[in-house]
């Protein structure tokens, strides 16, 4: 029994780590622009495709696979960050002063664009990652098995998140980001280049998300052009559970969601798992409308 619980813990933490990485992008953009960037999930999956290209093209070049994988991560992060920046410039910046919902629709449009762009570039069928990219190592403890990809996912996400947290909460630039998040004009009056801050959010979030996307590719070894929605939605839920706009919240939400998924599927019902997840989400919202770590700033009247 303990073995099963441990195994489910491993299962959950793996997926949770991926969710958390993607959730960070949602939360950062939301924090600064109050915008649900519906295109974020697609950007992340775009990252997986870019990684796939790198891995596919380098496969015969005789490099050690680990190096190749590392290069794929960097390439994916860079390309997706560039895409994020381009997205911000074209789809969101012109709507900075418009109604919030206009930007949401623009984001939905961007999502369709990216998703179907991927389809046009890579075709409407599943794409499969090469196997054997990573050494087939695994460890057994207490009846549970964990393999190298899973360890990499957990470690990678933990480190990235910690760095990001430190950056946003303990550096001047991070404080400036939070200031821009709360009042852009006032931030300008402090000498903060708000446009640059927003751009940096659209660089950091997608770059981290691309890492998450590539982890998906390495772990499940199949990607599909509409997958951005599924993962994006889950990550978004994670961000909400944790308290959207809040970086530790995104991490907490992602991990909780992953664990919850695993335990719900493993012990309750695999086919109702998603419903149980949403029920949890709605329950949390009703009890804590701003998520677990979201601070309630009551509206002053």
């Amino acid at each position, binding site marked *: 029994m303990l073995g099963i619980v441990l195994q489910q813990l491993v299962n959950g933490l793996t997926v949770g780590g991926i969710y958390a990485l993607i959730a960070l992008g949602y939360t950062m953009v939301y924090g600064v622009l109050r915008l649900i960037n519906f295109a974020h999930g697609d950007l992340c999956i775009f990252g997986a495709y870019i990684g796939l290209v790198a891995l596919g093209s380098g496969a015969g070049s005789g490099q050690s696979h680990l190096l190749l994988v590392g290069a794929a991560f960097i390439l994916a992060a860079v390309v997706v960050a560039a895409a994020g920046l381009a997205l911000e410039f074209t789809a969101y910046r012109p709507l900075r002063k418009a109604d919030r919902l206009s930007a949401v629709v623009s984001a939905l449009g961007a999502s369709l664009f990216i998703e179907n762009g991927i389809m046009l570039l890579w075709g409407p069928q599943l794409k499969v990652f090469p196997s054997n990219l990573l050494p087939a190592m695994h460890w057994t403890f207490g009846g549970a098995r964990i393999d190298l990809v899973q360890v990499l996912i957990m470690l990678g996400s933990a480190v990235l998140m910690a760095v990001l947290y430190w950056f946003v909460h303990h550096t001047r630039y991070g404080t400036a980001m*939070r*200031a821009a998040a709360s009042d852009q004009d006032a931030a*300008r009056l402090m*000498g903060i280049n708000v446009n640059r801050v927003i751009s940096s959010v659209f660089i950091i979030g997608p770059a981290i998300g691309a890492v998450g996307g590539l982890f998906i590719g390495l772990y499940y070894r199949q990607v599909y052009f509409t997958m951005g929605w599924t993962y994006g939605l889950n990550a978004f839920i994670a961000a909400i559970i944790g308290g959207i706009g809040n970086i530790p919240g995104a991490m907490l939400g992602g991990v909780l969601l992953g664990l919850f998924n695993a335990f719900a599927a493993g012990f309750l019902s695999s086919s109702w798992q998603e419903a149980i997840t949403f029920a949890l989400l709605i329950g949390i919202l009703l009890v804590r409308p701003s998520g677990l770590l979201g601070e309630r700033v009551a509206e002053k009247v």
Partner: protein
Amino acid sequence: MSDGSVGHSMRLLEVENLDVRYGQIQALKGVSLRVEEGEIVTLLGANGAGKTTLMRTISGLLRPRAGHVRFRGEDITRVGADRIVRLGISHAPEGRRVFPTLTVAENLMLGGYTRAPAEAAQSLKQVLLMFPRLEERSRQLAGTLSGGEQQMLAIGRALMAKPRLLLLDEPSLGLAPIIVRDIFRALRQIRQQGMTLLLVEQNARMALKLADRGYVLETGHIALQASARELLESPEVQATYLGRETSSADGARQQP
């Protein structure tokens, strides 16, 4: 503060023929004004006259349709707000606009965002001396401060940039009489430190008593400009902006 590098003939701030629109509404029409180094200039005007609009245009938050803003001889009309701060203009905006989800300390720290940390720390000491309440509340989220406390924070935050020119938009709005006085005292202190001030106030009497010169803005254009003393004595100004003394002989201010 009077460094010789700035030629004496050079105006600190010069606004020339400014036109600003919000969509169809023309908020400013051909507004010109100037502020000399070390002066306190006040801007009077009814609601909607365009005072805030003028301030926001100077600090770069709004782009004028036509006209120029020059600061120390340099044309800053098209310069972004964040760069203008670096040039030496600080703006404590209307409605305080503190960062509600940041602490008081973080708000102040951002006020000195453009400066070296060590210099900013120096200014912080002075600001906290001027507004001790802010020191007590330094870890509180700014959004939960009362209106007066927020106003102190907004002024303190603007001072953190150690500006040459401080723009203050209605610092006394919604504040208790006693606080209003405190704030004006603080403003006097600031002036003694040699800072230049452009002040918008509904409380015309107090503003004119503090200022050297004043402008009266009416529906987007300058209707009157004169020394503060002249304005105080002008019948038009008295009728519209200084009603307290003439209309209500029993106003609070007349009490011993």
